[in-house]
């Protein structure tokens, strides 16, 4: 992010927000990557990995829906762009240069490179999708982004180069716990920094009152498009991680129900709370698996019925979500303050 501001948020330099802390977290992710498979059933390990991908999706969507107040329903579209781009790159590399992909170092390099390209491709698409948001708001924007997501899906469905309905298969499983949580930390870090910067205050002002923000001389157009592009970037990376975790993708995976899933996470966690998105993403991913045994008793799969009911009840009882707009660190610091 370009530092076009001078005032530093006091959160940034103190305690939990220092860069050292983030780097330690990345290191911890890789330690866990080596350690966990030995002590943990690979089922739980896989759930954690899925939760990580969902965290990236939820946090990046929260930047658009929560912090900027632009209700996007097309996150699956950005995810699919990322998934296809990175999977296409690695499968093509594997086909044209098998020796290089055998080496674990160079294959990791190609993988991360493909993820970054995936993110950039998604950013470009996000920019294009973000443009209509200059003129539309609220429900209209929601349905237009949903429409964009569907258009992207139909385009993939009709592109023979990426297999059409067959999709891509035989994608190497480069994704591991370490990569997922490295990108989780990068995503959370980036979104946190953006939100607590002057850019972030632009986004918040757009959410709170766009007309007033414009009247104050805030460039709302730029703010909205940037939020869309950055949100799409991380969705694209999540898509790439997803593709290299599942080893096969097809257009049907990325239909609007996937966008709804991410929206449920953001809404439950609290629109405008990063910690909320993280907690909700983990909670819902784990809950979905935890509710599986329920099927043995009921004979039918009740999970989505429960989810939709929870969504409705949440809106009726506590529309701001579990966390509202506050963060975990707010609770911590208020406790500290109370002690002092």
């Amino acid at each position: 992010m370009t530092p076009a501001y001078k005032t530093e948020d006091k959160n940034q330099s103190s305690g939990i927000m220092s860069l050292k802390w983030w780097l330690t977290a990345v290191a911890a992710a890789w330690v866990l990557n080596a350690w966990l498979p030995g002590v943990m059933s690979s089922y739980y390990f896989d759930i954690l990995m899925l939760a990580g991908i969902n965290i990236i999706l939820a946090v990046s969507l929260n930047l658009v829906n929560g912090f900027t107040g632009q209700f996007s329903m097309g996150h699956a579209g950005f995810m699919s762009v990322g998934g296809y781009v990175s999977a296409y790159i690695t499968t093509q590399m594997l086909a044209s240069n098998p020796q290089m992909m055998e080496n674990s170092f160079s294959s990791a390099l190609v993988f991360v490179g493909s993820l970054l390209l995936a993110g950039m491709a998604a950013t470009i698409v996000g920019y294009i999708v973000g443009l209509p948001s200059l003129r539309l708001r609220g429900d209209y924007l929601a349905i237009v982004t949903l429409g964009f997501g569907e258009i992207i899906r139909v385009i993939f469905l009709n592109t023979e180069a990426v297999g059409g309905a067959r999709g891509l298969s035989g994608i190497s499983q480069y994704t591991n716990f370490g990569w997922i949580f490295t990108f989780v930390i990068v995503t959370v870090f980036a979104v946190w920094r953006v939100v607590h910067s002057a850019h972030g205050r632009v986004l918040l002002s757009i959410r709170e009152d766009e007309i007033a923000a414009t009247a104050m001389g805030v460039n709302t157009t730029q703010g909205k498009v940037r939020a869309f592009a950055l949100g799409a970037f991380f969705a694209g990376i999540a898509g790439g991680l997803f593709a290299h975790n599942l080893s096969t993708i097809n257009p049907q995976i990325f239909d609007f129900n996937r966008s709804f899933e991410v929206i449920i996470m953001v809404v439950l966690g609290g629109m405008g709370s990063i910690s909320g998105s993280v907690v909700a993403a983990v909670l819902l991913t784990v809950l979905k698996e935890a509710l599986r045994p329920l099927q043995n008793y009921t004979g039918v799969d009740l999970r989505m019925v429960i989810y939709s009911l929870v969504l409705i009840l949440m809106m009726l009882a506590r529309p701001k979500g579990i966390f509202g707009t506050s963060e975990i660190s707010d609770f911590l610091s208020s406790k500290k303050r109370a002690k002092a």
Partner: protein
Amino acid sequence: MFLRVLSISAILCAGLCPTSSYSQTIKVGEIGSMTGSEATFGISTHQGIELAIKEQNAKGGVKGKKLELINVDNQGKPEEAAIGTTKLITQDKVIAVLGEVASSRSLAMAPIAQKNKIPMISPSSTNPKVTTIGDYIFRVCFIDPFQGEVMAKFAAETLKVKKVAILRDVKSDYSLGLSDYFKAAFVKGGGEIVVDQTYSSGDVDFNSQLTSIRSKKPEVIFIPGYYTEVGLIAKQARKLGIKVPLLGGDGWDSTKLYEIGGKSLNNSYFSNHYSKDDQAPSVQTFVKNYEAAYKATPDGLAAMGYDAALVLIAAMEKTKNLTPKEIRDAIASTKDFSAVTGKISIDDKRNARKPAVDLEVKDGKFLYKSTVSP
């Protein structure tokens, strides 16, 4: 160094702490789409599998142990199929996995089964890629190239037509594969594809595609889709005055086809795994038992699910200690196994070699026309 100590201790712990306990049942896993837009396929398959397991248990199970079927719903999503497979293998400790109908989901499951060296049998994934994932992955259905050839031959030799129109489902990899192989085989045999139109599963209106097909005057229309759409297509085709025969694949096999399409389906033909009216005792007992258990006529997917379970059970009985490795070898050596859908042999690519039958649809009945062996 710290890392290494950690990982060693982790491995030690995993080795020492016993996670699998001796159980009185043999656990078999099944992944299927019980909800979602493709649930109707998953439920049929599940009922077929369940019936086979129940019948075997009534006979005393395998090696004196009862079979226990653990079903996981994937809602039609590949990632749910993948995590479900992991759950079945690592949590429930199943010794074999049955599933999935759709190739897209089988492709997500196969790497996991292969990695854990647990045999997996897909009842009806026709994409050739599925079994190339590894040597633990099998299927009991024929693959697209064979069925495409069978239908091309049927069109050219039995119906004696030269001009064919294709109406394919662009959302389904099954339909795409079958169309491509049919096209290749039919053109090779000297025929002509006059028009290749598309629809998306879930559509209900096909009038425009059919109008465009009608203007090209084909002698036959090949519709390799699922019964969920084909019934409507047939109805609309007849109402647009298209009287030429319709042709399809095993996706047609369901009583729903006639319920939706009605008389419009007369003068249509499709290839299938078996004929329900086959008088062979194995077929008749299956149909009778299925109807008794589920109050419904079995469709093609139910029969394939039943056979996938039969092949697995037969393989288990051949083993000494019921280890996944032994079961894999036993499945791989399946030869001329008499199942409901014909004699199944597993070839060296772990695909089933078995005959196909051509059926004619007439007033709600599927009449047997001929058998084609590979």
